[in-house]
């Protein structure tokens, strides 16, 4: 049988598919970050905590209210998004005219507080959350065994990413949003409530993080640190894609998932660092990121 660099091609396909699955999480999370940064100019460090909250809300809905996965998929983003809106009104709205750094420090602090509260309450070992029965099991693709749930994650995240991109780039609402970031005063003069638009956008970005959290709950353990581990990687994805670029964050999210997947085969020890190596190279060659516009 022919082999590619010592790896049979079947194994390679399997690993690429796994990379794509991980890339789905990167894509949804970095999309949320990119929207928030692109339209609000806030570097949202609470994103990881909000992802974690999404998973926890799904767990709480199931254990305290008996509400299953499918409703959680809808409810958790709404609930966590609403909390995001409260955070925006209470804190972030006051920092709009200040330097990025203030928003970054505030959201970083909030993330630590939220994680600490959850850790205090639930410990760090994690809570069990089962795969919904409709998606249990898997199918044999010939080159690997694909759990149905992982397939669903890829499909769901692709759909969400494309829909979001479409709304922002191709619809009237998206046009308002983009205009409001370019010149808020002018847009307000046309009778559009810009502050509300911005708050809702933040809520939406946060909701995306929570959605990723619900998707992740059945495959990773639901624990308070799950976001903290991921957020740094996701930031690297956003930087590589170009800060604030919607399409860039989606493409690099999936792309880096693939690169990471390949690293796990050829040199597993470097799997945790490869994304940062790519980041350094991209920043050296194209400081604005792959899809970023130079100001």
């Amino acid at each position: 049988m022919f082999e590619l660099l010592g790896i049979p091609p079947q194994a390679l396909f399997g690993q690429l598919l796994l990379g794509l699955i991980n890339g789905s999480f990167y894509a949804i999370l970095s999309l949320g970050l990119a929207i928030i940064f692109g339209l609000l100019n806030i570097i949202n460090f609470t994103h990881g905590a909000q992802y974690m909250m999404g998973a926890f809300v799904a767990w709480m809905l199931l254990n305290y209210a008996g509400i299953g996965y499918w409703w959680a998929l809808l409810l958790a983003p709404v609930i966590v998004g609403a909390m995001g809106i409260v955070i925006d009104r209470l804190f972030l709205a006051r920092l709009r005219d200040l330097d990025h750094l203030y928003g970054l420090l505030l959201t970083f602090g909030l993330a630590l507080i939220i994680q600490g509260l959850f850790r205090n309450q639930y410990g760090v070992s994690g809570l069990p959350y089962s795969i919904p029965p409709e998606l249990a099991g898997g199918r044999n693709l010939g080159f690997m065994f694909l759990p149905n749930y992982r397939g669903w994650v890829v499909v769901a995240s692709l759909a969400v990413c494309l829909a979001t991109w479409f709304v922002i780039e191709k619809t009237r609402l998206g046009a308002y949003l983009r205009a409001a970031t370019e010149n808020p005063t002018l847009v307000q003069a046309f009778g559009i409530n810009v502050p509300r638009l911005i708050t809702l956008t933040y809520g939406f970005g946060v909701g995306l993080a929570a959605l990723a959290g619900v998707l992740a709950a059945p495959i990773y353990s639901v624990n308070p640190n799950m976001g903290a581990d991921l957020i740094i990687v996701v930031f690297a994805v956003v930087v590589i894609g170009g800060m604030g670029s919607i399409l860039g964050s989606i493409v690099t999210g999936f792309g880096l998932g693939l690169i990471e997947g390949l690293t796990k085969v050829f040199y597993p020890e470097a799997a945790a660092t490869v994304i940062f190596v790519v980041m350094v190279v991209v920043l050296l060659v194209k400081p604005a990121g792959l899809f970023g516009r130079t100001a």
Partner: protein
Amino acid sequence: MKTGRMLLATALVALFAGGAEAQVSVKLGVLNDRSGTYADLSGEGSVIAARMAVEDFKAKDKGINVEIVSADHQNKPDIGSNIARQWYDQDGVDVILDVPTSSVALAINQITREKNKIFINSGAAASDLTGKQCSPNTVHWTYDTWALANGTGSAMVKAGGDTWFFLTADYAFGHALERDTIAVVEKSGGKVLGTVRHPFPGSDFSSFLLQAQSSGAKVIGLANAGGDTINSIKQAAEFGITQAGQNLAGLLVFITDVNALGLQTAQGLVLTESFYWDLNDETRAFAKRFAEKSGGKMPTMVQAGVYAGTLHYLKAVEALKDKDSAKVMAKMKEMPTDDPLFGKGQVRADGRKIHDMYLFEVKKPEESKGPWDYYKLVATIPAAEAFRPLDQGECPLVKG
């Protein structure tokens, strides 16, 4: 009434004044992971355990003043080292307890030796602590990679699992556990088909599990711990690896991990521990008191080890009426150990504490009678066979 109180007060003052002659003050520092992946198996629970040991020993009545401090090493050797230096140099800490995460433990091992203090390790696994890197100032209490490999590894080979593939956490602990298990597997006539080292801590293990699957090995050895093991086991079930006939060997699984996995996923797992709360009346009594203080959680073997280690240290200090590190270490090695959690045992010349180890199997959901009722005892490995023989550890203290 009033005179009664006066009398009592006078009596108390007299008591303290009397005790003051032999007063020794010791400061214990519990250094572990309080926020990361090992926080549930050590963390605040270890501090509770240390406090319980001091209470149960009635240290105050015996003229020993004990103060306990604690800190979070975040599983990073540099942070752990800084705290240890600060504790020894400025804060007057005499003993450091617990320290899970082998990379941090090996660093503390060095610093403690440099500063001539005492290190009673419970949480770390690397058998190097009493092997090549052994120190006259260190006691390794609860378990180590050799004991785990010897328990779970040989049981799996005996049950027919003679080909292995390892999923190893890429740092000191994982490497040590992998090395010790490979030795056991090969000695028992098994074969190792491959290993893959994953970043620590990780969250997605599917890629590594798939590599393990395509190796065709009968047993996938998980040389990792805490959240890494939980996620590996969960994802192995998801990818149909266990259903397809390959067995998982969780080489280091704590009861908190089983609790997090749930019996549905964890059932049938074979694991080695030195303590389980439901072993006998004494462990049950301890666990009940512990649970009252820790919000219903049962103690792990690491927390039990902190309790027993603290108790043994205090006994040595009481016997000597002195806290000089060299004398106390000598006393701790000379006195046989005896405590309600680990029974009778001994601290060897290389610092290794020996006691029985137990091979457990995780119960099926229908066998479990209630919360935390997770293990069935499969075998007891007697103390004499449970740990690496003294002459095989290459510890310089033994030769000299």
